[in-house]
């Protein structure tokens, strides 16, 4: 009777594997095949043939290194800002909110009830000429008459920070909430002041949340193209925008595929280095 027992876990895994195989592995293989194709000589727009042209990767990277750099810069900035905003927020909800805890958590998640796209378009209105931010800053003489906020890198990074904030806040909250308050009390008993107790006890114990939150923010942010498309200008285009344009506008599937692969590998390397450094014993 022991044999079926062994089989059960594998059977339970089967639907998941089948799904991932069909909708992840097969497309990845297809993408890899596409990435080394070149145009059919004399063929029509969008007709490509396999020539194992690995040079596509070099060309795609060299032509778009600026957008690659920008993607990682913006994603890093958005992650840092999101962390700076989310940590106190999650801390407050976990330790100080009392009976309002659940309401505040709902408020953190509430933006998800609206479409990602609509929220970003709303930001365009808020930062636009007829919103309240620009006239406000102008009346305080912080920005000049001709300065605008939309179509700038500030708007793109701000939009990304906002859009990914819940992804940062929720894992942080989950980690902070699990901390036993008695450990902090114990630190106080051992003559640690508030700052030392926070630095030596709270922060290390919340690290799994920090790692999970930064990954959940950074990875989608690096591949994001919506914020740059809606809030940015031609000078703030990210790699996601290039892939979109290559695929739909230029109908250059191989370059789009090569760029996608390069982005995946770059993120994988960065994330591996980061996890090595930060440690993930408690992450999974």
């Amino acid at each position, binding site marked *: 009777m022991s044999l079926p027992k062994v089989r059960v876990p594998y059977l339970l895994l089967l639907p998941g594997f089948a799904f991932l195989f069909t909708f992840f592995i097969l497309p990845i293989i297809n993408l890899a095949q596409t990435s080394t194709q070149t145009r059919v000589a004399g063929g029509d727009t969008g007709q490509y043939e396999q020539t194992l042209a690995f040079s596509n990767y070099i060309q795609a990277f060299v032509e778009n290194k600026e957008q690659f750099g920008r993607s990682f810069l913006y994603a890093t900035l958005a992650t840092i800002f999101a962390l700076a905003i989310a940590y106190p927020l999650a801390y407050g909800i976990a330790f100080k909110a009392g009976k309002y805890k659940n309401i505040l958590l709902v408020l953190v998640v509430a933006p998800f009830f609206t479409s990602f796209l609509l929220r970003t378009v709303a930001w365009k209105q808020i930062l636009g000429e007829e919103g309240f931010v620009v006239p406000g800053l102008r009346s305080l003489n912080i920005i000049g008459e001709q300065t605008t906020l939309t179509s700038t890198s500030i708007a793109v990074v701000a939009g990304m920070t906002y859009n990914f904030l819940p992804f940062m806040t929720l894992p942080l909250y989950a980690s902070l909430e699990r901390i036993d308050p008695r450990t902090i009390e114990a630190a106080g008993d051992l003559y640690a002041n508030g700052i030392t107790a926070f630095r030596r006890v709270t922060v290390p114990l919340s690290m799994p949340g920090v790692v999970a939150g930064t990954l959940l923010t950074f990875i989608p942010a690096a591949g994001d193209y919506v914020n740059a498309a809606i809030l940015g200008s031609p000078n703030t285009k990210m790699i996601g925008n290039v892939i979109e344009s290559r695929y739909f506008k230029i*109908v250059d599937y191989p370059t789009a595929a090569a760029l996608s692969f390069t982005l995946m590998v770059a993120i994988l390397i960065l994330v591996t280095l980061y996890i090595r450094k930060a440690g993930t014993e408690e992450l999974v």
Partner: protein
Amino acid sequence: MANKPSLSPEARSILRTQISRRAVLAGAGGIGAAGLLAACGGGGDSASAENTVRWGNWPLYLDFDEASKTYPTLVKFSEQTGIDAKYFEDYNDNDEFFGKVQAQLKLGEDIGYDVVTPTDWMAARWIRLGYAQKYDTANIPNKVNILDSLASPSYDPNRESTLTWQGIMGGFGWNVEKNPKGIRTLDDLFAPQNKGKIVVLTEMRDTIGVILLGQGIDITKVTEDQFMNAVDFMAKKISDGWIRGVKGNEYAEDLTSGDATAVIGWSGDMFILASENEGKFDFAIPESGGTISGDNLMIPSTASAAGKANGEKLINYYYDPVVAAEVAAYVNYVCPVKGAQAEMEKIAPELATSEYIFPTEKTSSRLNVFRSLTPDEETKWAEAFQQAQGN
């Protein structure tokens, strides 16, 4: 009048109350009742039959009656001919639609449509690939009604397999307060008050077309060097901070929010903007000429003989000036049918004088169709245009 097509107060008041294509889009959160109705139809996969015709068109691009949830002109067509017209509003994007049906076209399998509505350059690609059928002109006597300015595009010089559904003018749009004298030339567009507040279209043929025309180049014969030169001009205006964005229909939002004060834009959008904002915005065809492009009624190679004949009858029906006027009163784009203006006098005289819907002959002569590109050019030029905008 030819230089400054503007709306009469009557036209504005009519438009404010009328359910236009764009107003429905804005009001119903993007899903008009028409869209829902079409969605129920199942997306054009029913088999071609003797007395049916299946037409795939862009959303909100045909007169629609909210009360009865029907397309009045289409209902009349069915009554007159006994042909069951199935209408699908699922042509949302040229590339997307092409991608969806390309494999079937290649194999010669039914794609589920007897009439499709691609934009000029995409129609050119279908023709090149042999995916379009030539009309039996005996079935389309109204073909002669096409406007002279649209009668011989380079991809189909004799209009043997395409006829324009609606035309779209490309030119300058502006905020009247910021540009009291209006915009007629590239110099007017790149005037100091517009610095950093100019938006141009993502549609390569309109944006570069208007720039090329401003440089005195004939876009029906443009060479690669001339094109690349115009792209460099645009790239320079972007890097020098003149142009803030290259966008699709969203430029209308930028104009209303005040983020943009001048644009290279489309007549239909500007028509709505001007009427919704009490004349705060205006549109003109540049002195050096504007662009005109169109979406085209075309019969795919996979349509059956019966489907093709019925499709031709449908196309002929919509080239009847009476019917064309009814459609134009709803969709606000350039009506491609001669004689529709006289018919419009009878149903909505205010709209009959609109240069947006019925450009005068003098205006039409200043509109140009971008020449069709070879596949190599199409890829290379699109690439240059995309890279100039940071992609």
